[in-house]
């Protein structure tokens, strides 16, 4: 009963997106349009990690300008949530994840092939502008008097933090394991913690509300961001063109300006 209902729901969603699909197992009710004759789609749906919100929104505008009549719809969120949505049948064209692990759940499900790493993101220590605990290096975080926020290990920034700390051979007891990098950053911005490990891009995006401190061990825990077109993409052609834009020099410029590093 549950499967029938959810299948129906997906079918309705797919039908609503007004595109044919090449796969007949996912949505039998919506497979009226033959795959080969996919018409010039006017809508592109991109699922992207929350940390890409600013950069991808900008690239989306560029893309729309270059493809008149096309609109790019974004769904930003935690990479893991997005991956779950895709494996549960959400109609997306492009998936840009903040970690290879989350991309892997999509490729394992056969829903994407050949992901490409398009940027890397590095951790920094974020401290409030007045740096009350006088944090200067990763080692300072081990001081029990310093309140530290980390991302939970289940989310990419948390996994990266653990990798970096392991590489440095340090043990940090955080006061909190936040559900995502933005929440972690908020704790620093409000001065609730003395330091946190977040991405360099997040420090830059915070526009001065936190100060970033680079640390050498960060190189041991660089986060790869893979991007891929989805095999069931309703707008496969546009999807490929969008990925090309992200990988182009223009795309790189936008991304590096925001603090990402080229792969």
């Amino acid at each position, binding site marked *: 009963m549950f499967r029938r209902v959810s299948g129906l729901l997906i079918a309705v969603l797919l039908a609503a997106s007004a595109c044919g699909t090449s796969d007949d197992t996912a949505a039998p009710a919506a497979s009226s349009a033959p795959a080969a004759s996919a018409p010039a789609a006017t809508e592109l749906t991109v699922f992207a990690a929350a940390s890409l919100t600013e950069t991808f929104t900008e690239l989306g505008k560029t893309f729309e300008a270059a493809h008149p009549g096309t609109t790019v719809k974004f769904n930003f969120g935690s990479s893991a949530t997005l991956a779950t949505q895709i494996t549960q049948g959400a109609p997306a064209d492009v998936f840009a994840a903040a970690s290879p692990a989350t991309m892997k759940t999509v490729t394992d499900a056969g829903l994407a092939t050949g992901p490409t790493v398009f940027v890397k993101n590095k951790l920094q220590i974020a401290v409030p502008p007045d740096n009350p605990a006088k944090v200067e290096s990763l080692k300072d975080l081990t001081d029990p008097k310093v309140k530290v926020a980390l991302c939970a290990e*289940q989310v990419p920034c948390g996994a990266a933090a653990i990798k970096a700390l392991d590489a440095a051979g340090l043990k940090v007891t955080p006061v909190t394991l936040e559900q995502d990098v933005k929440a972690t950053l908020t704790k620093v911005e409000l001065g609730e913690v003395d330091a946190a490990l977040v991405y360099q891009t997040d420090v830059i995006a915070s526009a001065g509300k936190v100060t970033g401190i680079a640390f050498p061990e960060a190189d041991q825990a660089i986060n790869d961001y893979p991007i891929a077109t989805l095999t069931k993409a309703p707008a496969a052609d546009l999807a490929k063109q969008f990925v090309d834009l992200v990988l182009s020099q223009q795309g790189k410029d936008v991304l590096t300006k925001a603090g990402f590093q080229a792969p």
Partner: protein
Amino acid sequence: MNDTDRSPVAGRLPWVLVLPAAIGLVFLVLPLVGLLVRAPWSTLWERLTEPQVLEALRLSLVTATLATVICMVLGVPLAWCLARLAFPGRRVVRALVTVPLVLPPVVGGVALLLALGRRGLVGQWLDSTFGITLPFTTAGVVVAEAFVAMPFLVISVEGALRAADLRFEEAAATLGATRWVVFRRVTLPLIAPGIVAGAVLCWARALGEFGATITFAGNFPGQTQTMPLAVYLALETEPEAAIVLSLVLLAVSVIILASLRDRWVNSP
């Protein structure tokens, strides 16, 4: 149609009511069915007995109960003032009480940080004077849950107070009872069902609290990681574990609420 079986006064079922009721019930229960269907039954027991799960469950039950106690201690008098005292701006106060209902919980959490956080309006003073900081502590979880759940109690109790027959209070006054005695020995027992209903709602809301808790109190196993937080984080990597945790939370709350209700109904 078997009309003879029907009691003569019952009449026809009013489909206008029964049909939407049935749809409403299905709407509420279907997601639960979804959880049950997808639950990894084979590994259920093993996952249940993981220390982290039990830890989160214990923390959830303790904090939700403490939050409910706080809501009752503060919320019942607040409801009494709203229902029984005529003061200027009462409507505004009543609207303010419902703020946590309208506020997205995460915003509520941020608001709590701004008020009670280490650098918050009051939190700053708490920290410098008493050395108390609420964020990232179990007490912080209780505060966040109480903040979000209190309106449920206040609204229920105020409704019960308004529905209660004021003349019982008058009768008590003619017998020499002061306002406090009237409240304690007459009003409270009379509105007890309303208080229980409010406390149940309040407790259930506190038990499921996520947004304000994770924002204000953070997430650390054994300290501040309640079941909803554990569920959310499990969802990131292991959706199946998240389903198990959700089922545990549901089962425990349903068992507790159902038994409470029975006890209440059966009491004389």
